[in-house]
């Protein structure tokens, strides 16, 4: 899974940075709202949490340095409820609430060459800090942070072409230049220490979809 995502990320097209006319009126900010599935990079996850993925929700705000390059921050939230291990019984038992709040600072490169381009591929990555909280019912709560990196890439589809009048209204009313529907894959790596003296990657792979507003 991890390999396929990395191959996908780095096999993207070479982006030509200076393509679209920089002197034209263009959006300078983008706002993303997205959600999807997060596949933790933790062994035996499904044994304790019932399935090999959980829900992830995130939002990001980015500034467009050029039409193709933007920098921004992203915040997300991941939560699952599962069980722990009762080692002497050899069974899963108890109740665990596992929460992650990844915060990313990223650089994103978008293959946009025209304001009316239907499909826009993009790729990016950057620094990651994951805030974690692991609450073991009637026993203990572990809190902490883990630093690492992330990479992501995806494809944005311009919705303006589907409903031109709605697009025009969005621009006139609230200044939204373009609205995109997008899907993306993301890989996050951030190692955290465990009580056994080892460490574990709190990150993993994500499939996300959402809306992007450029304004």
């Amino acid at each position: 899974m991890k390999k396929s995502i990395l191959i996908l990320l780095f096999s993207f097209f070479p982006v030509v940075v200076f393509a679209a006319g920089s002197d034209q009126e263009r959006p300078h900010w983008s706002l993303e709202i997205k959600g999807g599935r997060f596949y933790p990079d933790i062994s035996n996850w499904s044994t304790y949490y019932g399935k090999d993925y959980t829900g992830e929700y995130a939002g990001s705000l980015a500034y467009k340095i050029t039409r193709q390059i933007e920098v921004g921050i992203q915040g997300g939230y991941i939560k699952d409820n599962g069980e722990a291990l009762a080692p002497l019984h050899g069974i899963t038992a108890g109740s665990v609430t596992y929460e992650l709040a990844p915060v990313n600072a990223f650089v994103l490169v978008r293959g946009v060459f025209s304001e009316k381009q239907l499909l826009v591929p993009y790729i990016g990555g950057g620094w990651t800090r994951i805030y974690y909280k692991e609450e073991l019912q009637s026993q203990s709560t572990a809190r902490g942070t883990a630093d690492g990196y992330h990479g992501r890439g995806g494809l944005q589809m311009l919705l303006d072409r589907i409903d031109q009048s709605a697009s025009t209204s969005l621009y006139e009313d609230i200044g939204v230049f373009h609205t995109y529907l997008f899907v993306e894959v993301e890989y996050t790596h951030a190692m955290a220490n465990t009580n056994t003296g080892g460490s574990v990657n709190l990150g993993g792979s994500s499939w996300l979809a959402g809306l992007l507003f450029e304004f």
Partner: protein
Amino acid sequence: MRTRHAIVLSFSILILLITSSPRIVQAATLTVSKSCGSALNVNCFASISAAVSAASNTTSPSIVIEAGTYTESVSLTVDNLPISGTETARTVLQSASGPAITANGLGTVNISKLTIVSTSVGIQLTGVSSANISNNVFFGSGKATAIEFQGASSSGTISNNTFFQNLTAISSPPTGILIQSNIFSQNSTALSSPQTTNITYNDFDANPNNGYTFLPTGDTNIPNSIVAATNPKFVNPSSPPPGMDLHLQQGSPCIGNGFSGTDIGAYGGAGADTIPFIISGVALSSPSSGSVSVDWSPNNAYNIGGYNVYYSLNRSGAPYDSKATLASSVTSTVISGLSEAVESVSAPVLNKLGIGNGTLFASWSAVPAATDYLLHYTDTSIVSSATTTTIHVGNTTSYALGGLINGHYYLITVSALAQNTYFFSVTAFDSTVVGAGGGTPGVSHESNYSAEQSIPIGSTVEGPLSNSQTDFPETIIPNPDLVNNGCFIATAAYGHYSASQVQALREFRERYLLTNAPGRAFVRWYYRVGPGGAEFINAHPWLKPAVRMALMPAVGGALFMTRASALAKALTLVSAGLLVFALHARKKLLHAGGKR
């Protein structure tokens, strides 16, 4: 595989077609109820607007609204669509803003038996040919226009409505409208710019501006030469809807003075609902063995014929097992001969125990008539002095038994406590069904059941023990077993996880303890004892300054080790070494007899 895909695809398309197609409703009567909302029940709707929308696909539709409070603005788009509540007082339509009901350009509008609450306009009729509005209550908090006519309107009746505390009761009623048997009470203006002169048998009470000129003789409207008093004597006008009760009390001038000798107002005339206002204030007590005293607030409507007290043993809700019928003058009674002895109590079935750290989680099946449960446990690891402890866990079917010793086996059983409980509800019925002992609650001539009350009587009986379950608690380990980055004691002492001193200790742990086996062993030990220490400090805040003082050398050391440069560390190490050497040399000298 292809066949499977084809089936899935066909099914998906079918579902899409079903959900995206407008619902074709064949039944003529569409019900609106707060309990509706399921898409599978095509005749039942959660909102009036949804029912109106569905009515456009229905042959000869009508809408019946069950009791409840509906907050919405309804736009009537279907001609000749009767809309009627089942119980005027408790079928409340209120609008958050704008008119509660609007109709524009329709032929006929029929609205009845609703309580319409608005702060702008109750019903707004624009260019409607015929309007029939009857048996409604309009309450406008002194701000609203109850019925507003706009544009031409040729015929219709506004009859047997109660307009209470509106800014304007009826605005611009057109020429062809009959205004009959209505109560206009405490409105700023009763009739504004009336074009019709067909105004009969109405009660005009305490409106600063009636908008109507009374005939010198023979006027059927109140006040007139025969009936001078105008106060309609509402039962309870002070509570807001749905608690507002505008039925008439004994002595009201509106009784029998409407058209054809009927009552004036929302509860008079042939179309009025026959359901008395619901009883409130039901209270129970047990004055003696086997008896329950029931008290309630009276229904002061003039036509109340009596009360029914319904009750059941160990079962909540209608239908009830028994009822006692009482006269209208009675507002309390004692029901005797009730059973105090619990017939039988079965044993719960105890499920396999859940495991936790010092905790076993027990769950069991519910037992009929059980009021509470007892949980019994024995530490079977202590063979010599094993005693059984019983915990009264309340009326629940699960319990986390904490405070246990990890690794010890515990035997657990559960038993039910039972006590007879009687459930009571009271209704009022009108005088037309006195001989029959009441009507049908919530349907005709008898009010809906009051809010149910219950009372346990007799002694509590413990049932047999459940099956037993044995297990032991242990420390459970999450996956992943993440380190708590907080230093428990320091966090407690400094008050916050992100205090700079705590961060210094945390960095020291990361760099100097977790990187070697002895350090990791120390961290593991600390994680076992630390939380207990932190809990103690949090429970005794006065200790915090002392703990901070005690931690100062550790914090200082951690700061030095994590923040100082390598050169500073080396110099400090050399200095310390020299100091030790000097002290050692001085001691040696003194020992050899040298002078200080």
